[in-house]
Protein backbone atom coordinates (compact mmCIF):
# COMPACT_ATOMS: atom_id res chain seq x y z
CA UNK A 1 0.00 0.00 0.00
CA UNK A 2 1.37 3.38 -0.94
CA UNK A 3 1.84 6.29 1.39
CA UNK A 4 -0.99 8.20 -0.24
CA UNK A 5 -3.42 5.33 0.27
CA UNK A 6 -2.70 5.23 3.97
CA UNK A 7 -3.68 8.86 4.20
CA UNK A 8 -0.31 9.83 5.64
CA UNK A 9 0.09 12.71 3.26
CA UNK A 10 -3.40 13.99 3.87
CA UNK A 11 -3.29 16.94 6.20
CA UNK A 12 -5.89 19.41 7.38
CA UNK A 13 -3.45 22.25 7.57
CA UNK A 14 -0.16 23.26 6.06
CA UNK A 15 1.46 24.19 9.34
CA UNK A 16 3.28 22.24 12.00
CA UNK A 17 2.71 22.70 15.71
CA UNK A 18 5.94 22.83 17.63
CA UNK A 19 6.16 22.76 21.40
CA UNK A 20 8.98 24.72 22.99
CA UNK A 21 9.56 24.41 26.71
CA UNK A 22 8.79 24.40 29.56
CA UNK A 23 12.10 22.57 30.05
CA UNK A 24 14.06 24.32 27.35
CA UNK A 25 17.41 25.92 28.26
CA UNK A 26 16.74 29.03 26.20
CA UNK A 27 13.41 29.90 27.77
CA UNK A 28 15.20 31.06 30.94
CA UNK A 29 13.08 29.12 33.36
CA UNK A 30 9.83 27.28 32.87
CA UNK A 31 8.28 29.24 30.05
CA UNK A 32 6.40 27.31 27.40
CA UNK A 33 5.47 28.58 23.98
CA UNK A 34 3.49 26.68 21.38
CA UNK A 35 4.66 27.66 17.92
CA UNK A 36 2.61 27.22 14.79
CA UNK A 37 5.24 26.82 12.10
CA UNK A 38 4.97 27.35 8.36
CA UNK A 39 8.25 25.80 7.28
CA UNK A 40 10.85 27.70 9.24
CA UNK A 41 8.66 30.74 9.80
CA UNK A 42 6.62 31.19 12.96
CA UNK A 43 2.97 31.93 12.14
CA UNK A 44 1.61 32.22 15.66
CA UNK A 45 3.17 31.85 19.08
CA UNK A 46 0.98 31.04 22.04
CA UNK A 47 2.57 31.47 25.47
CA UNK A 48 1.80 29.23 28.41
CA UNK A 49 2.83 30.24 31.91
CA UNK A 50 2.14 29.19 35.47
CA UNK A 51 4.66 26.39 35.94
CA UNK A 52 6.46 28.28 38.68
CA UNK A 53 3.39 29.61 40.47
CA UNK A 54 4.14 29.67 44.19
CA UNK A 55 1.28 31.80 45.45
CA UNK A 56 3.52 34.50 46.89
CA UNK A 57 0.77 37.11 46.69
CA UNK A 58 -1.61 34.92 48.67
CA UNK A 59 1.10 34.05 51.20
CA UNK A 60 1.90 37.75 51.62
CA UNK A 61 -1.68 38.38 52.73
CA UNK A 62 -1.03 36.13 55.72
CA UNK A 63 2.38 37.36 56.78
CA UNK A 64 3.55 40.50 58.52
CA UNK A 65 5.04 43.27 56.45
CA UNK A 66 8.60 42.46 57.53
CA UNK A 67 8.13 38.81 56.64
CA UNK A 68 7.12 39.64 53.07
CA UNK A 69 10.55 41.13 52.27
CA UNK A 70 12.42 37.78 51.94
CA UNK A 71 9.66 36.56 49.62
CA UNK A 72 10.08 39.58 47.36
CA UNK A 73 13.69 38.45 46.83
CA UNK A 74 12.40 35.26 45.26
CA UNK A 75 10.18 37.02 42.72
CA UNK A 76 12.79 38.52 40.45
CA UNK A 77 15.69 36.44 41.66
CA UNK A 78 18.24 38.23 39.52
CA UNK A 79 17.47 41.66 40.97
CA UNK A 80 16.40 41.11 44.61
CA UNK A 81 17.28 44.59 46.00
CA UNK A 82 15.00 46.20 43.42
CA UNK A 83 12.05 44.16 44.66
CA UNK A 84 12.93 44.86 48.31
CA UNK A 85 13.09 48.55 47.52
CA UNK A 86 9.75 48.58 45.70
CA UNK A 87 8.03 46.86 48.63
CA UNK A 88 9.70 49.02 51.27
CA UNK A 89 9.02 52.31 49.45
CA UNK A 90 5.33 51.48 49.16
CA UNK A 91 5.04 50.49 52.82
CA UNK A 92 6.97 53.58 53.87
CA UNK A 93 4.64 55.75 51.81
CA UNK A 94 1.68 54.31 53.72
CA UNK A 95 3.51 54.71 57.03
CA UNK A 96 4.71 58.19 56.17
CA UNK A 97 8.22 57.68 57.54
CA UNK A 98 11.25 59.66 56.44
CA UNK A 99 14.32 57.70 55.38
CA UNK A 100 17.77 59.02 56.39
CA UNK A 101 20.04 60.17 53.57
CA UNK A 102 22.68 57.54 54.25
CA UNK A 103 20.10 54.75 53.96
CA UNK A 104 18.86 56.17 50.66
CA UNK A 105 22.36 56.27 49.21
CA UNK A 106 23.12 52.73 50.42
CA UNK A 107 19.88 51.59 48.77
CA UNK A 108 20.87 53.21 45.49
CA UNK A 109 24.31 51.58 45.57
CA UNK A 110 22.78 48.17 46.26
CA UNK A 111 20.16 48.51 43.52
CA UNK A 112 22.65 49.66 40.91
CA UNK A 113 25.10 46.87 41.78
CA UNK A 114 22.28 44.42 41.38
CA UNK A 115 21.23 46.00 38.08
CA UNK A 116 24.76 45.40 36.79
CA UNK A 117 24.69 41.81 38.07
CA UNK A 118 21.31 41.21 36.45
CA UNK A 119 22.42 42.66 33.13
CA UNK A 120 25.55 40.50 33.28
CA UNK A 121 23.42 37.38 33.68
CA UNK A 122 21.26 38.58 30.82
CA UNK A 123 24.22 39.33 28.54
CA UNK A 124 25.92 36.02 29.28
CA UNK A 125 22.87 33.82 28.78
CA UNK A 126 21.54 35.81 25.83
CA UNK A 127 24.86 35.54 24.02
CA UNK A 128 25.04 31.85 24.92
CA UNK A 129 21.58 31.30 23.42
CA UNK A 130 22.67 32.86 20.15
CA UNK A 131 25.94 30.92 20.18
CA UNK A 132 28.61 33.19 21.67
CA UNK A 133 29.98 31.06 24.46
CA UNK A 134 32.92 33.19 25.63
CA UNK A 135 30.88 36.17 26.76
CA UNK A 136 29.05 33.94 29.20
CA UNK A 137 32.26 33.03 31.00
CA UNK A 138 33.44 36.64 31.11
CA UNK A 139 30.12 37.91 32.45
CA UNK A 140 30.05 35.30 35.19
CA UNK A 141 33.54 36.36 36.26
CA UNK A 142 32.40 39.94 36.95
CA UNK A 143 29.07 38.89 38.43
CA UNK A 144 30.93 36.77 40.96
CA UNK A 145 32.55 39.93 42.31
CA UNK A 146 29.17 41.55 42.88
CA UNK A 147 27.90 38.41 44.61
CA UNK A 148 30.95 38.52 46.89
CA UNK A 149 30.10 42.12 47.72
CA UNK A 150 26.54 41.04 48.51
CA UNK A 151 27.90 38.39 50.81
CA UNK A 152 30.05 40.90 52.61
CA UNK A 153 27.21 43.31 53.33
CA UNK A 154 24.31 40.93 53.95
CA UNK A 155 25.77 37.47 54.47
CA UNK A 156 23.90 36.11 51.46
CA UNK A 157 25.07 36.01 47.88
CA UNK A 158 21.81 36.40 46.02
CA UNK A 159 18.70 36.77 48.20
CA UNK A 160 20.10 39.62 50.22
CA UNK A 161 16.96 41.12 51.85
CA UNK A 162 19.28 44.02 52.58
CA UNK A 163 16.73 46.80 52.13
CA UNK A 164 14.26 46.91 55.02
CA UNK A 165 11.29 49.02 55.96
CA UNK A 166 12.74 52.22 57.42
CA UNK A 167 16.26 51.88 56.03
CA UNK A 168 18.70 49.07 55.38
CA UNK A 169 19.63 45.97 57.37
CA UNK A 170 23.05 47.14 58.53
CA UNK A 171 25.53 49.89 57.98
CA UNK A 172 28.10 49.78 55.20
CA UNK A 173 31.32 48.06 56.18
CA UNK A 174 34.80 49.16 55.24
CA UNK A 175 35.62 46.03 53.14
CA UNK A 176 32.35 46.46 51.26
CA UNK A 177 33.02 50.08 50.37
CA UNK A 178 36.61 49.26 49.41
CA UNK A 179 35.38 46.34 47.33
CA UNK A 180 32.94 48.55 45.44
CA UNK A 181 35.67 51.16 44.85
CA UNK A 182 37.86 48.45 43.36
CA UNK A 183 34.99 47.10 41.29
CA UNK A 184 34.02 50.41 39.70
CA UNK A 185 37.63 51.02 38.75
CA UNK A 186 37.93 47.55 37.24
CA UNK A 187 34.54 47.27 35.54
CA UNK A 188 34.56 49.81 32.61
CA UNK A 189 37.39 48.00 30.83
CA UNK A 190 35.40 44.78 31.11
CA UNK A 191 32.31 46.32 29.50
CA UNK A 192 34.53 47.41 26.61
CA UNK A 193 35.75 43.83 26.43
CA UNK A 194 32.19 42.46 26.04
CA UNK A 195 31.54 45.05 23.37
CA UNK A 196 34.72 44.07 21.54
CA UNK A 197 33.46 40.52 21.46
CA UNK A 198 29.97 41.33 20.23
CA UNK A 199 29.12 44.80 18.97
CA UNK A 200 30.96 44.57 15.66
CA UNK A 201 30.95 40.82 15.39
CA UNK A 202 29.36 40.01 11.97
CA UNK A 203 27.69 36.83 13.26
CA UNK A 204 26.18 38.71 16.19
CA UNK A 205 24.97 41.48 13.87
CA UNK A 206 23.40 38.97 11.48
CA UNK A 207 21.50 37.36 14.30
CA UNK A 208 20.33 40.53 16.02
CA UNK A 209 20.00 43.49 13.66
CA UNK A 210 16.45 44.02 12.44
CA UNK A 211 15.20 40.90 14.23
CA UNK A 212 12.22 41.13 16.55
CA UNK A 213 11.67 44.83 15.93
CA UNK A 214 8.92 46.78 17.68
CA UNK A 215 8.04 50.36 16.83
CA UNK A 216 7.58 53.05 19.47
CA UNK A 217 3.77 52.79 19.31
CA UNK A 218 3.79 48.99 19.52
CA UNK A 219 6.16 48.97 22.49
CA UNK A 220 3.96 51.42 24.41
CA UNK A 221 0.74 49.68 23.46
CA UNK A 222 2.03 46.26 24.57
CA UNK A 223 3.15 47.74 27.93
CA UNK A 224 6.83 47.03 27.52
CA UNK A 225 9.01 48.66 30.12
CA UNK A 226 12.63 49.17 30.97
CA UNK A 227 15.35 48.54 28.37
CA UNK A 228 12.90 46.92 25.91
CA UNK A 229 10.83 50.13 25.86
CA UNK A 230 13.85 52.42 25.62
CA UNK A 231 15.30 50.44 22.70
CA UNK A 232 12.13 51.35 20.78
CA UNK A 233 12.74 55.07 21.14
CA UNK A 234 10.68 55.82 24.24
CA UNK A 235 12.47 58.00 26.76
CA UNK A 236 10.85 56.54 29.87
CA UNK A 237 12.92 55.75 32.91
CA UNK A 238 11.18 55.94 36.29
CA UNK A 239 14.45 57.02 37.90
CA UNK A 240 14.03 60.23 35.87
CA UNK A 241 10.25 60.41 35.37
CA UNK A 242 9.20 59.86 39.00
CA UNK A 243 12.43 59.97 41.01
CA UNK A 244 12.53 57.89 44.18
CA UNK A 245 15.20 57.38 46.87
CA UNK A 246 17.80 59.97 45.87
CA UNK A 247 18.19 59.34 42.14
CA UNK A 248 17.52 62.99 41.38
CA UNK A 249 20.87 63.85 43.03
CA UNK A 250 22.89 61.94 40.47
CA UNK A 251 23.90 62.86 37.00
CA UNK A 252 23.35 59.99 34.57
CA UNK A 253 22.05 59.44 31.04
CA UNK A 254 19.16 57.26 29.96
CA UNK A 255 20.22 55.43 26.81
CA UNK A 256 17.45 55.55 24.18
CA UNK A 257 17.71 53.93 20.75
CA UNK A 258 15.20 53.82 17.92
CA UNK A 259 15.23 50.54 16.03
CA UNK A 260 13.61 48.40 18.73
CA UNK A 261 15.33 45.22 17.55
CA UNK A 262 17.42 42.71 19.50
CA UNK A 263 20.60 44.61 18.73
CA UNK A 264 19.28 47.88 20.15
CA UNK A 265 18.02 46.18 23.28
CA UNK A 266 21.52 44.77 23.67
CA UNK A 267 23.13 48.18 23.24
CA UNK A 268 20.72 49.84 25.68
CA UNK A 269 21.54 47.32 28.40
CA UNK A 270 25.28 47.52 27.85
CA UNK A 271 25.13 51.30 28.10
CA UNK A 272 22.97 51.00 31.23
CA UNK A 273 25.72 49.01 32.89
CA UNK A 274 28.09 51.96 32.31
CA UNK A 275 25.52 54.42 33.64
CA UNK A 276 24.89 52.28 36.73
CA UNK A 277 28.60 52.30 37.38
CA UNK A 278 28.56 56.10 37.09
CA UNK A 279 25.71 56.31 39.62
CA UNK A 280 27.56 54.05 42.07
CA UNK A 281 30.67 56.20 41.71
CA UNK A 282 28.76 59.40 42.50
CA UNK A 283 26.90 57.73 45.35
CA UNK A 284 30.13 56.52 46.95
CA UNK A 285 31.68 59.97 46.68
CA UNK A 286 28.69 61.63 48.31
CA UNK A 287 27.91 58.94 50.90
CA UNK A 288 26.74 61.01 53.91
CA UNK A 289 27.40 60.15 57.52
CA UNK A 290 24.44 59.46 59.76
CA UNK A 291 21.99 56.73 60.73
CA UNK A 292 21.36 53.88 58.29
CA UNK A 293 17.73 53.43 59.35
CA UNK A 294 14.97 55.65 60.56
CA UNK A 295 15.12 56.62 64.27
CA UNK A 296 11.34 56.04 64.46
CA UNK A 297 11.14 53.08 66.84
CA UNK A 298 7.62 52.21 65.73
CA UNK A 299 9.18 51.10 62.43
CA UNK A 300 12.75 50.03 63.10
CA UNK A 301 14.27 48.30 66.11
CA UNK A 302 16.00 50.54 68.68
CA UNK A 303 19.79 50.09 68.99
CA UNK A 304 20.70 46.95 70.88
CA UNK A 305 22.73 48.69 73.62
CA UNK A 306 19.78 50.92 74.65
CA UNK A 307 17.69 47.89 75.65
CA UNK A 308 19.55 47.56 78.95
CA UNK A 309 19.11 51.17 79.97
CA UNK A 310 15.88 52.44 78.42
CA UNK A 311 12.45 51.08 79.35
CA UNK A 312 10.91 52.72 76.29
CA UNK A 313 13.40 51.06 73.96
CA UNK A 314 12.62 47.69 75.55
CA UNK A 315 8.89 48.18 75.01
CA UNK A 316 9.41 49.23 71.39
CA UNK A 317 11.67 46.25 70.83
CA UNK A 318 9.14 43.87 72.36
CA UNK A 319 6.22 45.32 70.40
CA UNK A 320 8.08 45.30 67.10
CA UNK A 321 9.31 41.74 67.50
CA UNK A 322 6.05 40.28 68.82
CA UNK A 323 3.54 42.32 66.84
CA UNK A 324 5.36 43.84 63.91
CA UNK A 325 4.73 47.11 62.13
CA UNK A 326 1.11 48.27 61.98
CA UNK A 327 0.39 50.20 58.80
CA UNK A 328 -2.44 52.78 58.60
CA UNK A 329 -5.48 52.05 56.43
CA UNK A 330 -4.92 52.93 52.80
CA UNK A 331 -3.78 51.76 49.39
CA UNK A 332 -0.86 52.94 47.37
CA UNK A 333 1.62 52.11 44.67
CA UNK A 334 5.20 53.26 44.10
CA UNK A 335 6.88 52.23 40.85
CA UNK A 336 10.64 51.88 40.60
CA UNK A 337 12.95 51.13 37.70
CA UNK A 338 14.13 47.56 38.15
CA UNK A 339 16.61 45.81 35.91
CA UNK A 340 13.81 44.63 33.60
CA UNK A 341 11.54 47.63 33.81
CA UNK A 342 8.84 49.02 36.02
CA UNK A 343 8.58 47.09 39.28
CA UNK A 344 6.09 48.08 41.93
CA UNK A 345 3.93 46.69 44.66
CA UNK A 346 0.32 47.73 45.03
CA UNK A 347 -0.40 47.38 48.74
CA UNK A 348 -3.79 47.62 50.42
CA UNK A 349 -3.63 47.96 54.19
CA UNK A 350 -6.54 47.38 56.55
CA UNK A 351 -4.74 48.94 59.51
CA UNK A 352 -3.32 45.70 60.92
CA UNK A 353 0.20 44.30 60.92
CA UNK A 354 -0.61 42.08 57.91
CA UNK A 355 -1.16 43.50 54.40
CA UNK A 356 -4.66 42.98 53.00
CA UNK A 357 -3.43 42.77 49.42
CA UNK A 358 -0.01 42.71 47.82
CA UNK A 359 0.22 42.80 44.05
CA UNK A 360 3.46 42.86 42.11
CA UNK A 361 3.64 44.68 38.83
CA UNK A 362 6.16 42.47 37.08
CA UNK A 363 7.80 43.77 33.91
CA UNK A 364 8.44 40.26 32.55
CA UNK A 365 4.81 39.26 33.01
CA UNK A 366 3.56 42.35 31.17
CA UNK A 367 6.04 41.82 28.31
CA UNK A 368 5.14 38.20 27.51
CA UNK A 369 2.13 38.78 25.16
CA UNK A 370 4.07 41.44 23.26
CA UNK A 371 7.10 39.18 23.06
CA UNK A 372 5.00 36.42 21.48
CA UNK A 373 3.49 38.94 19.07
CA UNK A 374 7.06 39.86 18.12
CA UNK A 375 7.85 36.24 17.25
CA UNK A 376 5.21 36.09 14.53
CA UNK A 377 6.84 36.13 11.13
CA UNK A 378 10.30 35.40 12.50
CA UNK A 379 12.43 32.38 11.80
CA UNK A 380 12.45 29.68 14.44
CA UNK A 381 16.13 30.30 15.13
CA UNK A 382 15.28 33.87 16.16
CA UNK A 383 12.76 32.80 18.78
CA UNK A 384 15.46 32.16 21.38
CA UNK A 385 17.04 35.50 20.52
CA UNK A 386 13.76 37.32 21.07
CA UNK A 387 13.07 35.58 24.39
CA UNK A 388 16.60 36.38 25.52
CA UNK A 389 16.43 40.01 24.45
CA UNK A 390 13.28 40.72 26.48
CA UNK A 391 15.03 39.17 29.51
CA UNK A 392 12.16 37.43 31.23
CA UNK A 393 12.47 35.98 34.72
CA UNK A 394 9.86 33.34 35.41
CA UNK A 395 9.95 33.90 39.15
CA UNK A 396 8.15 37.20 38.74
CA UNK A 397 5.96 36.06 35.85
CA UNK A 398 4.28 33.24 37.78
CA UNK A 399 4.76 34.65 41.28
Amino acid at each position, binding site marked *: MSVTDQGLLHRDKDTMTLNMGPQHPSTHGVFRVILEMDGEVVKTAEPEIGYLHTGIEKTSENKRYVHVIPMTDRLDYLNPPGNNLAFCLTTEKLLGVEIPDRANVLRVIMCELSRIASHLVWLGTHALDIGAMTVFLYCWREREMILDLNEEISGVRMMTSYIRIGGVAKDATRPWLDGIRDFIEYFPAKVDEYERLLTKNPIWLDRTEGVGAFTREEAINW*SFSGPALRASGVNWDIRKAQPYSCYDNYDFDVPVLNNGDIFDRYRVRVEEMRQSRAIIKQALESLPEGPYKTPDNKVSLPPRETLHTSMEALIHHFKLVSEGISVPVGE*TYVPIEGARGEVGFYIVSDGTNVPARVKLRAPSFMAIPGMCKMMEGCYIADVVGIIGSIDIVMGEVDR
Partner: protein
Amino acid sequence: MTSEEIIEKVKAGLADAIQDTDLPQGDAVIFVAPDSWHAVADFLKNDADLKFDYFSDVRGVDYLLEEREPRFESVYQLYSIDHQHSIRVRVGIDEDNPSVPTVSDLWKGALYPEQELFDMFGINVEGHPTMERLIMPKGWEGFPLRKDYPLTTETVTFSYNRDFKSDLVKSKPPTR
Protein backbone atom coordinates in the same frame (compact mmCIF):
# COMPACT_ATOMS: atom_id res chain seq x y z
CA MET B 1 0.10 68.05 35.04
CA THR B 2 -0.12 67.77 38.78
CA SER B 3 -2.54 65.34 40.40
CA GLU B 4 -4.99 68.14 41.23
CA GLU B 5 -5.03 69.35 37.63
CA ILE B 6 -5.56 65.80 36.33
CA ILE B 7 -8.56 65.36 38.62
CA GLU B 8 -10.00 68.75 37.61
CA LYS B 9 -9.55 67.91 33.95
CA VAL B 10 -11.15 64.47 34.29
CA LYS B 11 -14.05 65.92 36.27
CA ALA B 12 -14.61 68.58 33.62
CA GLY B 13 -14.52 66.05 30.80
CA LEU B 14 -16.65 63.31 32.37
CA ALA B 15 -18.72 64.83 35.12
CA ASP B 16 -21.42 62.16 35.33
CA ALA B 17 -19.17 59.09 34.96
CA ILE B 18 -16.86 59.90 37.89
CA GLN B 19 -18.26 58.67 41.19
CA ASP B 20 -15.61 60.15 43.43
CA THR B 21 -12.03 61.40 43.46
CA ASP B 22 -9.25 61.17 46.00
CA LEU B 23 -5.68 62.34 46.51
CA PRO B 24 -4.05 59.80 48.85
CA GLN B 25 -0.38 60.74 49.42
CA GLY B 26 -0.55 63.00 46.38
CA ASP B 27 -1.65 60.38 43.80
CA ALA B 28 -4.57 61.14 41.51
CA VAL B 29 -7.29 58.52 42.10
CA ILE B 30 -10.74 58.40 40.50
CA PHE B 31 -13.64 56.05 41.23
CA VAL B 32 -15.66 54.75 38.29
CA ALA B 33 -18.59 52.33 37.91
CA PRO B 34 -18.02 49.27 35.71
CA ASP B 35 -20.68 50.41 33.21
CA SER B 36 -18.91 53.65 32.40
CA TRP B 37 -15.33 52.35 32.70
CA HIS B 38 -14.76 51.76 29.00
CA ALA B 39 -15.95 55.25 28.06
CA VAL B 40 -13.75 56.76 30.78
CA ALA B 41 -10.75 54.74 29.56
CA ASP B 42 -11.36 55.92 26.02
CA PHE B 43 -11.42 59.55 27.20
CA LEU B 44 -8.29 59.12 29.32
CA LYS B 45 -6.37 57.66 26.43
CA ASN B 46 -7.47 59.98 23.64
CA ASP B 47 -7.79 63.37 25.34
CA ALA B 48 -4.87 65.50 24.14
CA ASP B 49 -4.05 67.00 27.57
CA LEU B 50 -4.28 63.73 29.50
CA LYS B 51 -3.08 61.21 26.88
CA PHE B 52 -2.70 58.19 29.13
CA ASP B 53 -1.11 56.01 26.48
CA TYR B 54 0.70 53.55 28.75
CA PHE B 55 -1.14 50.83 30.63
CA SER B 56 0.89 49.89 33.67
CA ASP B 57 -1.19 47.33 35.52
CA VAL B 58 -4.56 46.23 36.83
CA ARG B 59 -4.99 44.55 40.20
CA GLY B 60 -7.99 42.95 41.79
CA VAL B 61 -8.78 43.56 45.43
CA ASP B 62 -11.26 41.65 47.58
CA TYR B 63 -12.76 43.75 50.39
CA LEU B 64 -14.70 40.85 51.96
CA LEU B 65 -13.15 41.25 55.42
CA GLU B 66 -13.83 44.99 55.48
CA GLU B 67 -17.45 44.20 54.51
CA ARG B 68 -17.33 46.96 51.97
CA GLU B 69 -19.89 47.42 49.21
CA PRO B 70 -19.14 46.57 46.42
CA ARG B 71 -16.97 43.66 47.44
CA PHE B 72 -14.43 43.60 44.59
CA GLU B 73 -12.41 46.31 43.06
CA SER B 74 -10.15 46.38 40.03
CA VAL B 75 -7.54 49.10 40.20
CA TYR B 76 -5.93 50.40 37.00
CA GLN B 77 -2.66 52.28 36.82
CA LEU B 78 -2.11 54.46 33.75
CA TYR B 79 0.77 56.69 32.66
CA SER B 80 1.28 59.27 30.03
CA ILE B 81 4.73 58.90 28.51
CA ASP B 82 4.66 62.37 26.89
CA HIS B 83 3.27 64.31 29.84
CA GLN B 84 4.93 62.12 32.50
CA HIS B 85 1.94 61.93 34.82
CA SER B 86 -0.07 59.03 36.19
CA ILE B 87 -3.55 58.20 37.41
CA ARG B 88 -5.14 55.37 39.34
CA VAL B 89 -8.68 54.28 38.50
CA ARG B 90 -10.65 52.22 41.01
CA VAL B 91 -13.62 50.33 39.62
CA GLY B 92 -15.93 48.81 42.23
CA ILE B 93 -17.41 45.47 41.19
CA ASP B 94 -20.47 43.78 42.70
CA GLU B 95 -20.24 40.41 44.38
CA ASP B 96 -22.98 38.64 42.41
CA ASN B 97 -22.06 38.21 38.80
CA PRO B 98 -18.80 40.20 39.01
CA SER B 99 -17.86 41.65 35.65
CA VAL B 100 -16.03 44.60 34.18
CA PRO B 101 -15.54 45.64 30.54
CA THR B 102 -12.20 44.98 28.92
CA VAL B 103 -9.84 47.78 27.91
CA SER B 104 -7.54 45.48 25.96
CA ASP B 105 -8.89 47.02 22.75
CA LEU B 106 -7.34 50.34 23.85
CA TRP B 107 -4.13 49.03 25.40
CA LYS B 108 -2.89 45.62 24.24
CA GLY B 109 -0.85 45.37 27.42
CA ALA B 110 -4.07 44.86 29.38
CA LEU B 111 -4.60 41.39 27.87
CA TYR B 112 -2.54 39.43 30.40
CA PRO B 113 -3.34 41.23 33.65
CA GLU B 114 -7.06 41.18 32.81
CA GLN B 115 -6.88 37.46 32.27
CA GLU B 116 -5.15 37.17 35.63
CA LEU B 117 -8.01 39.16 37.15
CA PHE B 118 -10.36 36.40 36.05
CA ASP B 119 -7.96 33.66 37.09
CA MET B 120 -7.40 34.93 40.62
CA PHE B 121 -10.70 36.68 41.47
CA GLY B 122 -13.29 35.23 39.11
CA ILE B 123 -14.09 38.66 37.75
CA ASN B 124 -15.47 38.21 34.27
CA VAL B 125 -13.81 40.65 31.87
CA GLU B 126 -16.41 41.29 29.15
CA GLY B 127 -15.08 41.37 25.63
CA HIS B 128 -11.70 39.84 26.51
CA PRO B 129 -10.65 37.37 23.79
CA THR B 130 -9.38 34.60 26.12
CA MET B 131 -11.36 34.38 29.35
CA GLU B 132 -9.70 31.28 30.73
CA ARG B 133 -7.16 30.23 33.36
CA LEU B 134 -3.76 31.86 32.98
CA ILE B 135 -1.54 30.99 35.92
CA MET B 136 -3.61 28.31 37.65
CA PRO B 137 -3.99 24.98 35.82
CA LYS B 138 -6.91 24.52 33.44
CA GLY B 139 -9.81 23.05 35.36
CA TRP B 140 -8.80 24.52 38.71
CA GLU B 141 -11.70 25.15 41.02
CA GLY B 142 -12.12 28.37 42.94
CA PHE B 143 -10.39 31.72 42.72
CA PRO B 144 -7.27 31.73 44.90
CA LEU B 145 -6.93 35.39 45.79
CA ARG B 146 -10.49 35.79 47.05
CA LYS B 147 -10.54 36.24 50.79
CA ASP B 148 -12.93 33.30 51.32
CA TYR B 149 -10.53 30.95 49.54
CA PRO B 150 -8.78 29.08 52.37
CA LEU B 151 -5.03 29.16 52.76
CA THR B 152 -4.34 25.43 52.66
CA THR B 153 -1.76 23.14 51.27
CA GLU B 154 -2.50 21.35 48.05
CA THR B 155 -3.40 17.68 48.46
CA VAL B 156 -0.35 15.57 47.73
CA THR B 157 -0.92 12.73 45.31
CA PHE B 158 2.48 11.17 45.67
CA SER B 159 5.11 11.29 48.40
CA TYR B 160 8.40 9.62 49.13
CA ASN B 161 7.55 9.68 52.81
CA ARG B 162 6.21 6.23 53.83
CA ASP B 163 4.73 7.52 57.06
CA PHE B 164 2.91 10.25 55.25
CA LYS B 165 -0.28 11.08 57.07
CA SER B 166 -3.04 13.10 55.55
CA ASP B 167 -3.22 15.13 58.79
CA LEU B 168 -0.10 16.92 57.67
CA VAL B 169 -1.87 18.66 54.88
CA LYS B 170 -4.94 19.64 56.86
CA SER B 171 -5.82 23.27 56.63
CA LYS B 172 -4.60 25.69 59.22
CA PRO B 173 -6.36 29.01 59.66
CA PRO B 174 -4.13 31.95 58.85
CA THR B 175 -2.53 33.53 61.89
CA ARG B 176 -2.78 37.24 62.31
